[in-house]
């Protein structure tokens, strides 16, 4: 896998081959499929009932119906999107297959594109049933958000890919000893992205940091839509601009970490 040949054409066949590889894996393992469904379902049921309870006892939440469930669903898009990306990458490390891929004509950009497609597939398997549960149990239909939902989704998935690319580069460089970062890094973003509360709750200096994260714009936008029935296109465009910069930076970091892995012989070691 040559990081020095990005100018050459991208092969749809090679991307398709990698997607097929992960599809075969998913279909051969029912625990992997079950896990995709299990956590999102558990999340929505727990938080959904909490929202019901609070709504019965607080006027604000009664008016702002769905903000909590909506936040849970959007957070899951962000978190599961990154996990879907990173776990497909980790599958190569666990299988000790990375060397085979690195020695094949597969290019880094093609590898990353296949991981992006897989994150969408894994996300769909986990989150679509979750949204159906929200409709069935809590009468919250996330699809009724309409076109703004597409803007929310795109911005969240772009952020999840940026984090996924960066974390995969770290694992590539440092081996499976860095695996825990895959599971935990997104939680570092969680308090600053203001998922369940408005940015104004944060101290002023933390607000500056919060506004540097695209998910913050999405969750503020969601609250504006659900509480004030206003779609904040300006927030979505700002988030998109930051996401574009993040994606480029994460791809650059991935290539630098890949080069460092080659320099230090990490691709041969592969383990811890």
């Amino acid at each position, binding site marked *: *896998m*040559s990081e*020095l*040949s990005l100018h*050459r054409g991208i*092969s749809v*066949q*090679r991307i*398709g*081959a*990698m997607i*097929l*590889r992960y599809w*075969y*894996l998913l279909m*051969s*393992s029912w625990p992997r499929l079950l896990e995709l469904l299990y956590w999102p379902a558990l999340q929505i049921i727990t938080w959904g009932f909490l929202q019901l309870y609070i709504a019965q006892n607080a006027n604000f939440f009664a008016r702002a119906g769905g903000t909590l469930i909506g936040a849970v669903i959007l957070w899951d898009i962000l978190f599961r999107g990154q996990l879907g990306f990173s776990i497909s990458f980790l*599958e190569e490390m666990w*299988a*000790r*297959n*990375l*060397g*085979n*891929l*690195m*020695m*094949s*004509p*597969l*290019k880094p950009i093609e590898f990353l594109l296949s991981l992006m497609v897989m994150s969408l597939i894994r996300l769909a398997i986990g989150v679509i049933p979750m949204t159906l549960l929200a409709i069935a149990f809590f009468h919250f239909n996330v699809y009724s958000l309409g076109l703004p939902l597409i803007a929310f989704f795109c911005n969240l998935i772009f952020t999840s890919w940026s984090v996924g690319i960066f974390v995969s580069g770290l694992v590539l460089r440092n081996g499976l000893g860095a695996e825990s970062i895959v599971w935990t890094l997104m939680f570092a973003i969680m308090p600053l992205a203001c998922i369940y509360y408005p940015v104004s709750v944060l101290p002023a200096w933390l607000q500056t940091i919060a506004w540097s994260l695209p998910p913050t714009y999405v969750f503020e936008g969601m609250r504006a839509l659900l509480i004030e029935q206003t779609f904040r296109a300006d927030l979505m465009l700002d988030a998109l601009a930051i996401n574009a910069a993040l994606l480029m930076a994460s791809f650059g970091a991935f290539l630098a970490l890949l*080069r460092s892995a*080659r*320099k*230090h*012989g990490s*691709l*041969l070691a*592969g383990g811890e």
Partner: protein
Amino acid sequence: MHSTAQWRKNAFSMTENSKASSRPTVADGTLSAAIEVDRLVKLYKQTCAVDGISFTLPRGSITGLLGGNGAGKTTTIAMIMGLVLPTSGRVRVLGHRMPEQSAEVLGRMNFESPYVDMPMRLTVRQNLTIFGKLYAVENLADRIARLADELDLNDFIDRANGKLSAGQKTRVALAKALINQPELLLLDEPTASLDPDTADWVRAHLERYRNENNATILLASHNMLEVERLCDRVIIMKRGRVEDDDTPDAIMARYNRTTLEEVFLDVARGRTNGAKEEAR
């Protein structure tokens, strides 16, 4: 079909050329080399894994890379493949600089190594299909069917890779390494952990593949009989350096030994008796 003796002769006519004049290269059209390694060095912090080695392998040759553990064989192969960046020196594969021009050659080469596995949950057929697509193999179903016949995979081709025996896995790894009919095949311990029958069978297949396709094979091995049988040429490494480089017969004659295993022990224990100087 060529005999091993003919291949050895071809291999060494090139070596003599390279000693006689300025380095021949594919670029200037004087020689069609499969691999050119020039003053290659790899340092890991304070450890020198490879210490300024040079060699050129002609196309269609089988070369054995010998040496004890830590001699630098795997690092050398990894640098040829582009998996590890050299600290200094130059590698050209099929006429292209590695790793800068690796996109030009990765589809024309392949490898097998104990350091990598194929996905365990996927069946043999699924694995070969995926790698065939990655290498843009035409008529992939036919190619897989042919490899399955040649490497005797049909009994377990729809079984998960993780449920195969060591011998079966090695044959599958070899099928993956041959899926794109590579011009250059790099093998790291291709018969390690195999029973003698399967190992012999793999060696016969490699020899046949080279003869039928004029492929170049570089293999690192600890199995001296394997190297004696397969290789036109042997490069012995010790502590990151080339200790000797010649035909198996010439090396055995130089050390006044009848087997490469005895030569290996002499080199490993420093009993060169002037052979090292003669080799230079």
